[in-house]
């Protein structure tokens, strides 16, 4: 991993909603991780664990309560001039979850896709603009005739591909995919995942892939972070995480994924997770320990020692 370049460094990121009020929610509670150039970083967890908030905070849709997001060494948050912001907007893009809500129903597909082109002035002439739109449509497997239609005429999978084309229009380096397939049918999910993989290879993209479907995340990701109630509890290379899950929450999550295989389904044992099972002492420091190279777990020092012996 050492030879890989860090594209994004997330340091002690915090996102509290209703800060200081009685109903304060620690949506992201002090998480730290890096994303390397050219990799797919998966982020999994259950609803409300803060995985989507993490994505949205990284791309500045929310202002962070604390911590830093460094992109190529430059902090994304904090005061920025309009020009600097636009630069970030071009480098970082997002694909959204709900293909029915993520396209403006009143715009033609051509205008949906060309929005980024228009904002950043990437096309000099009208013809150039349309050429780019056609090219993007073809990149995501649609035809030029689709440019003049409205979003409601498309199926979910087609809309999601339009959303991908919109993100690609500004030629980003880094894409946050916020549950891009969870609203799609099984037969369509594979299409979208294949498209994302193929684009990554062709354009050298880096992804933050947020999802709750662990089997898809495992398939597409190089490394996976597991979140639980605003904290990252485990971070490891994808294979390693599936082979040696250390944190009990990760273990329970893995044991809960249904697999399309009746025989293993009949025999599987599910584990449940109870945060009290750690038996942490009061004031016992719980930190992100690196158990084996690249495999981090949120645990106390005692647990860390135990994990280390366990893994050998």
């Amino acid at each position: 991993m050492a030879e890989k370049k860090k594209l994004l460094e997330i340091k002690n990121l915090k996102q509290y909603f209703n800060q200081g009020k009685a109903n304060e929610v620690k949506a992201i509670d002090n998480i730290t991780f890096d994303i390397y150039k050219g990799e797919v970083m998966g982020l999994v967890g259950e609803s409300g664990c803060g995985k989507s908030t993490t994505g949205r905070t990284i791309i500045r849709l929310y202002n962070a309560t604390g911590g830093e997001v460094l992109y190529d060494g430059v902090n994304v948050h904090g005061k920025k001039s309009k020009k600097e912001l636009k630069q970030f907007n071009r480098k970082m893009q997002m694909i959204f979850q709900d293909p029915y809500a993520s396209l403006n129903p009143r715009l033609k597909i051509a205008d949906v896709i060309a929005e980024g082109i228009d904002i950043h002035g990437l096309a000099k002439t009208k013809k150039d603009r349309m050429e780019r739109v056609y090219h993007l449509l073809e990149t995501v497997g649609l035809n030029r005739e689709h440019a003049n239609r409205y979003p409601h005429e498309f199926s979910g999978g087609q809309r999601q591909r339009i959303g991908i084309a919109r993100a690609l229009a500004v030629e980003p380096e880094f894409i946050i995919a916020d549950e891009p397939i969870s609203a799609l049918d099984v037969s369509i999910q594979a299409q979208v995942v294949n498209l994302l993989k193929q684009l990554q290879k062709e354009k050298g993209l880096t992804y933050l892939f947020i999802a709750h479907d662990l089997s898809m995340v495992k398939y597409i990701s190089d490394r996976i972070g597991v979140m639980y109630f605003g904290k990252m509890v485990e971070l490891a290379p994808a294979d390693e995480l599936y082979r040696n899950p250390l944190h009990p929450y990760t273990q329970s999550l893995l044991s809960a994924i249904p697999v399309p295989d009746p025989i293993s389904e009949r025999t599987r044992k599910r584990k449940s997770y109870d945060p009290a099972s750690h038996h942490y002492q009061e004031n016992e420091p719980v930190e992100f320990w690196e158990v084996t190279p690249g495999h981090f777990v949120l645990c106390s020092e005692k647990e860390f020692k135990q994990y280390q012996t366990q893994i050998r």
Partner: protein
Amino acid sequence: MTTKENTISKDMFVPAHVDPAKSEKIAKKSLNFWQDSWLRVRKNKGAVICLVILVVLIIMAFVGPLLTPYSYDTQTTKYNNLPPRIQGLEDVHWLPFDGTLTRKDGTEYNAYEVRKVDAYYWFGTDNLGRDIFARLWKGTQVSLFIAFMAALVDMLIGVTYGAVSGYLGGRVDSIMQRIIEVIVGIPNLIIVVLMILVLKPGIIPIIVALTITGWTSMARVVRGQVLKFKNQEFVLAAKTLGASDLSIIFKHMIPNMFGIIIINTMFSIPNAIFFEAFLSFIGLGLQEPHASLGTLVNDGFKSMIAFPYQMIIPSIMIALIMVCFNLVADGLRDALDPKMRD
């Protein structure tokens, strides 16, 4: 469950070629929002009929006064209080266009013959001898103008105020909403009456009086919509692309509210007409010789027993306009409301 058909020839079982691009083809004709909405409105017969009636009424409001030889403000006191009389229809007795009136003792007489008037006032004349037909259309024209202007101003102020309030959110939103609450809290009628007293009755003051409180409901509706759209993914997507606030509001939010804005405006037009009529009726409306539907009803009301037609005709017109606008608005709501889409 099974059927075996061995009769099918073998050459049917050779691989066929299907163009993969074909399955991405969309069979339906491409319809934009307005075409789609029109298809839906068209299904609602009542709304379509009312729309036609409204169009006719609006045309007549401009053309009507030109159709009679009499002007709406020429007073011919000699010919005052004449009942309706229309050529060709005057011999049809069950129609009220034969120029007859009823005396207090119940006997009927033909006012035109008795007073030796050789003229046809289609809807009769008022107590100053002005042609009601001309006055009716002139009044409709003025009432519609006031209503449309009031609705338009309501819309402009309401949409802007609501959009700003909802989009900025936070403290600005709180303050702007409190202001609306204060305005709504003061009884409407008091504000309007005070406004008219200060500004002197006339078309513009009535419009001002109507809009000074009228925009609040639009502002609230638009604010609610903006709050809803603020977290929609297509708005977030525009933000991540670097779109400016103005373009988010005007390109992404407002076009998606067209339906609701139009419906709201359509419902506020009949309200404005009714309110204008009400103001005129209590004497705060337009002054002579100007006519609006409200003043016509008010004038007719004074001699309701003797000359009922003077009040009934403008009243029918108000009722017709109100019903038509409400039904069209209803039809539009069914057609434009995204929740009803399948």
